[in-house]
């Protein structure tokens, strides 16, 4: 579309020979032409063209000669073309309507997809359909951010160089966007039939298992419970993603590469989320066993005194469990 517009209509790439006057040294009887030159003059001044327009009077334009006129013509046309292209690019990319089709869902569909994300498919010889939808994944990422925030505050995490919220948002969005891009790149290398939006959608719905696991285990602090949830819930959602991906890839080596990478990254992320933001509370429980600290109590920030003593025992507790 842009190429044709340049050739027809408003601006032409060809210099308009009508405006060039051989006797430009002495002809200024055409008022229309003079007005147009003055207009171009103004536009060039507006552009920041230094020097040319400052001293001149409109009437003495003709004295400038051929080169001056040509130069002004070219500058004017380049300005027009540039302005047109910039406004086209802006209206194309800054338009949020591009994203509108990806948000076209019904609540029942979202619920169905959430439940499906925990059920691994059995048929891996036939490419499984992935809905290219971004509402569900986006909401799941934000939910994960909220759960992380809750977990960080209950475990009295102190972040020195930044804010809690910044860390939570950075971690979750970084994982979603970064791992999606990486898997898309790998899928491209392994000739898998998947688009970027589908990959984003698949991984986003895979975070549903993470949300459930973290929501439960941030409130009920038992190590073994976390491991069970990690294996079962995390494993189910990983299996589903892996099965869908496998159904869209041919070749054993490629399937192995894709599935191995995705499974490793997904499961390790859940481990990381649990251990990076939660160790202090477990330390509290290990030291203060007894009726004083039931596991369901919110030990948010009401126990600053304990945290110092806890930090020493935390290292011991982790070393013991690992």
């Amino acid at each position, binding site marked *: 579309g842009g190429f044709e517009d340049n050739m027809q209509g408003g601006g032409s790439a060809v210099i308009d020979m009508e405006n060039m006057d051989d006797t430009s040294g002495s002809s200024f009887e055409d008022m229309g032409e003079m007005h147009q030159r003055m207009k171009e003059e103004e536009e060039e001044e507006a552009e920041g063209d230094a020097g040319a327009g400052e001293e001149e009077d409109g009437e003495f334009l003709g004295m400038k000669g051929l080169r001056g006129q040509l130069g002004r013509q070219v500058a004017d046309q380049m300005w027009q073309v540039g302005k047109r292209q910039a406004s086209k690019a802006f209206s194309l990319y800054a338009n*949020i309507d591009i*994203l*509108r089709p990806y*948000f076209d*869902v*019904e*609540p029942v569909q*979202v619920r169905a997809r959430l439940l499906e994300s925990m059920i691994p498919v059995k048929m891996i010889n036939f490419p499984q359909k992935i809905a290219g939808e971004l*509402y569900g994944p*986006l*909401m799941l990422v*934000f*939910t994960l951010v*909220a759960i992380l*925030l*809750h977990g960080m*505050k*209950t475990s*009295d995490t*102190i*972040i*020195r160089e*930044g*804010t*809690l*919220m*910044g860390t939570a948002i950075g971690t979750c969005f970084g994982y979603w966007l970064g791992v999606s891009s990486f898997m898309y790149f790998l899928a491209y290398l392994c000739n898998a039939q998947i688009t970027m939006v589908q990959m984003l959608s698949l991984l986003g719905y895979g975070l549903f298992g993470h949300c459930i696991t973290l929501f439960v285990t941030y409130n009920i602090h038992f190590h073994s419970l976390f491991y069970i949830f990690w294996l079962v819930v995390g494993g189910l959602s990983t299996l589903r993603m892996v099965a869908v991906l496998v159904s869209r890839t041919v070749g054993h080596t490629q399937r192995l590469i894709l599935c191995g990478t995705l499974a490793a990254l997904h499961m390790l992320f859940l481990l990381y989320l649990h251990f990076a933001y939660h160790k202090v509370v477990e330390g509290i429980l290990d030291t203060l066993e007894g009726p004083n600290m039931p596991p369901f109590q*919110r030990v*948010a*920030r*009401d126990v*600053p005194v304990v*945290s110092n003593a806890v930090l020493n025992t935390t290292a011991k507790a982790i070393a013991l469990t690992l």
Partner: protein
Amino acid sequence: FPGLADVSISQDIPVEGEITVPVGSHSPDEDYSTLDEPVRDTIMRDLKAVGKKFVHVMYPRKSSALLRDWDLWGPLVLCVSLALMLQGGSADSKDDGGPQFAEVFVIIWFGAVVITLNSKLLGGTISFFQSLCVLGYCVLPLTVAMLVCRLVLLAGAGTISFIIRLIVVVAMFGWSTLASTAFLADSQPPNRKALVVYPIFLFYFVISWMILTFTPQ
């Protein structure tokens, strides 16, 4: 001025306008110019508009006053006061006081922008700033909750105070969500209301959680 004695104007031509120095261009809505009124009038008018919107938030009815004349003064005041009250509630080190203010500010504005974009993408008919205005004003119940929590914490930080704070914050959280839903959900197609309400719920949940876990040092 002896020089002006020669200046004569024919009596047929009516002379109008001001003899003072002409001021640039005359805008077409000069009749409604608010430049000449006393400053007190200007401020009181804006304050009254903000106050009226506060009342609309506390008693959410199906009125469109909040939507029609949107302004961002109220949300700014609420956001700043909430952020100031939440400051200084962190652990021992002194450099944790700073991020709290920025955190709250960024959460509120970034969250409001995301919710607005989301509702627009889902086919909403409300404009960007109108939505920001509604979401900002509906933070008012939570600011009130923060005030109450601070007062309760002055009396002590035990289990009973925690229960009181929990009840107050949950009630205000529900109020905020209902108030903003009353304004925003109408602009959506009827079967997609749940899709718009959920992010609002999450947004106010995060703010309520920050208020509930606040402990002054």
